């Protein structure tokens, strides 16, 4: 029984007819010049009319998607006169964000002896980390080295990455893996303990470590469990997003105003230092794209850090994952992990033909899928009008043997199985989906920012991936930089002398909005997308 309608099944017959031949067939990877050409022609980042240069703040003139600019230029929820005299809690390190970066930071700060409070918008662990499937990179095999990893990262990022950040990423990577192994994460291993490692898009060595296709979930639930074990020194407050950073009279970050999402109470949490780990912004749906991101991915940290004076970078590039689900309608935009291609499945057009090297860097692969559908008209269109091409998953078992898909991709089998599509027998229809915010708040390798006392980690930051992130480097990033941020913040907290907390930066911000006559009509951070029906 197939969940595909008859007209789509006709195309599947063509895919089946060419499958045996395609196992041996290859498409050459693109040269750097070919990559640039296809990106300019078809990647969403190159649609100038969907970008806007922001008009206020420290990074005035920087281009970013219109949807993001509108909230970055937004109005604060509270005024400069908000009462900071009675904080509801006092802590050494305040961590904003309960994903992988925030949890890693909490653990490392605690290990340095700091008292930690972690606030998060939804539940602890409701984050993009939880949804990452494919894996985490680290150069830990004899055939590989941090230098090769470095080249892969920087080439994938179009040579615009910040070298010191890439160095930190690749040199810390094996330590991050070891840390996770010590915490009891169940990596995919051979019986002698050798890590099972695969290629990802744009990698020149196999260095993708995984935990079936629940890699991010396995990291997140392990970190969360460990944080909960340290409840004596780490306090977690859920449903409490930050709505403003608080600085002191010397300009140092000394906490945040958070909002109880259920009572709407706005309260000050006083801290000696702040770690911002709020994640990305897929729920802003740039250019109308669906997203793989969790419900709370609304760029809150970018808004708050920028308003307090921290420069932004690289926000002119967003990552569209080449393979979001395009059918059935109920799961459009959800992630079909790159691991599917890492295991040997190839993208195929409606005629059953290969049209692209399966593991280009993500931006290039996404552009190739868009071209196949738009310019070449070789994509399918679903009954609801969604374009897509096939990702021929049954190839995986022709390569690795029966049962390989269930073993390596249980989440994918389950996801499609719920809609009566058996991906061990039938291909998946895919199309690019909004996946990752390459840019964000600028940081140094110790996670410090232009604002003393404000540290940053994870997707909210910008620079390590340049203008395009490779698969497996975000789980790595949240672990490496989460750990660095936690350590840096705890050390900083030991020496800092906090002054008088103020929201004076809001005065300056409001004044600038007024003088430049910028009024987007938005109060930000927006905290949650609104999907309710408006009649």
């Amino acid at each position, binding site marked *: 029984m197939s969940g595909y309608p008859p007209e789509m099944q006709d195309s599947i017959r063509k895919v089946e007819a060419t499958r045996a031949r395609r196992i041996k067939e290859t498409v050459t990877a693109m040269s750097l010049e070919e990559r640039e050409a296809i990106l300019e022609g078809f990647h969403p980042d190159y649609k100038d009319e969907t970008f806007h240069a922001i008009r206020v703040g420290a990074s005035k003139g920087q281009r970013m998607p219109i949807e993001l600019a509108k909230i970055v230029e937004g109005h604060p929820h509270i005024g400069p006169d908000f009462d900071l005299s009675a904080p509801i809690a006092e802590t050494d390190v305040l961590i904003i964000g309960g994903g992988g970066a925030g949890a890693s930071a909490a653990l490392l700060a605690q290990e340095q002896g700091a008292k930690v409070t972690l606030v998060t918008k939804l539940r602890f662990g409701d984050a993009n980390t939880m949804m990452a499937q494919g894996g985490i990179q680290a150069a830990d095999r004899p055939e590989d080295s941090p230098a090769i990893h*470095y080249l892969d990262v920087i080439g994938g990022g179009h040579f615009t990455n910040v070298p010191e950040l890439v160095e930190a990423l690749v040199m810390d990577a094996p330590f991050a893996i070891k840390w996770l192994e010590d915490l009891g994460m*169940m990596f995919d291993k051979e019986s002698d303990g050798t890590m099972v490692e695969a290629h990802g898009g744009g990698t020149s060595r196999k260095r993708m470590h995984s935990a079936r296709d629940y890699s991010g979930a396995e990291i997140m639930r392990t970190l969360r469990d460990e944080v909960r074990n340290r409840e004596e020194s780490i306090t977690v407050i859920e449903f409490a997003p930050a709505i403003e950073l608080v600085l002191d009279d010397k300009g140092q970050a000394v906490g945040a105003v958070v909002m109880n999402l259920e009572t709407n109470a706005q309260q000050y949490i006083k801290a000696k230092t702040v770690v911002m780990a709020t994640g990305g912004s897929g729920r802003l749906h740039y250019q109308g794209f669906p997203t793989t991101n969790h419900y709370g991915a609304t760029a809150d940290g970018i808004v708050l850090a920028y308003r307090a004076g921290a420069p932004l970078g690289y926000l002119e590039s967003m990552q569209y994952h080449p393979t979001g689900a395009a059918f059935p309608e109920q799961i459009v935009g959800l992630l079909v992990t790159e691991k599917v291609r890492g295991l040997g499945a190839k993208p195929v057009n409606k005629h059953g033909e290969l049209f692209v090297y399966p593991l280009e860097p993500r931006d290039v692969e996404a552009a190739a899928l868009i071209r196949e559908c738009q310019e070449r008209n070789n994509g399918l269109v679903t009954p609801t009008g969604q374009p897509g091409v096939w990702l021929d998953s049954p190839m995986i078992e022709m390569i690795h043997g029966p049962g390989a898909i269930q073993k390596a991709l249980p989440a994918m089998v389950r996801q499609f199985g719920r809609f009566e599509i058996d991906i061990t027998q039938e291909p998946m229809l895919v199309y690019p989906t909004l996946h990752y915010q390459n840019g964000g708040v600028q940081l140094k390798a110790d996670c410090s920012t232009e604002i003393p006392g404000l540290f940053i980690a994870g997707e909210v930051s910008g620079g390590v991936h340049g203008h395009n992130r490779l698969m497996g480097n975000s789980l790595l990033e949240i672990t490496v930089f989460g750990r660095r941020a936690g350590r840096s913040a705890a050390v900083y907290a030991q020496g800092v002398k906090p002054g008088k907390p103020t929201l004076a930066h809001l005065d300056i911000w409001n004044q600038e909005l007024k003088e430049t006559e910028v009024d987007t009509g938005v109060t930000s951070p927006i905290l949650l997308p609104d999907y309710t029906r408006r009649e």
Partner: protein
Amino acid sequence: MEEQNDLIPVYIMGKQYMVPPTLTIMKAMEYAGYQLIRGVGCRGGFCGACGTAYRILGDPKLYFGLACQTVVQPGMYLAQIPFFPAPRATYDITKLEPTATTLFSLYPEVLRCLGCGACTKACPQDIDVRNYMAAGMRGDIAALADISFDCIMCGLCAVRCPAEEAQYNIAILARRLYGRYLTPRSQHLQARLGELEEGKFDAEMAELKKLSKEDLVAQYKARDIEPK
């Protein structure tokens, strides 16, 4: 806009709303006008925030699912279970032994499992929870870890358990014991850590960081790609 006659009735905590039949429970609630705060998370079946219990009019059975992954049906009576209290042991993973004794001392209630299977029926991930609890009663931590691996910790098993277990908390303890103690450590990882600590790659990295873009591009193009 859908025609009225295309819509189907669903009951959110007993109150009727007409919604399009193609929507997931989560999207149907939003269509009905709910701005969700609880009972919503990743929206992709990974986080366990949107556990939902439902019955269908005229059908005596009780069903469970994730609101973000389950399509509505006519006459569906829905109740979100976004939070459910559950006991959780606190422990220092570095000081435990991967044994049945550890499991039973942290979670003595493991041995109270009745084997009724209500947990298995409730699991939206189709995990055989009863089976992993049986492994737990045998003290078989490896089996418990393996069978429970796809758990998203939504808590629906605990909601249904007549023995008042929190199966998913027991399961993560077992997985961490298994990952830390019962699988061999990666030797090549350990070797690489030694090399890093000795500074084996420091000079090479310093050189790379100094390269001009042109030289980086040249090195990038010259990479050899490890065969699949």
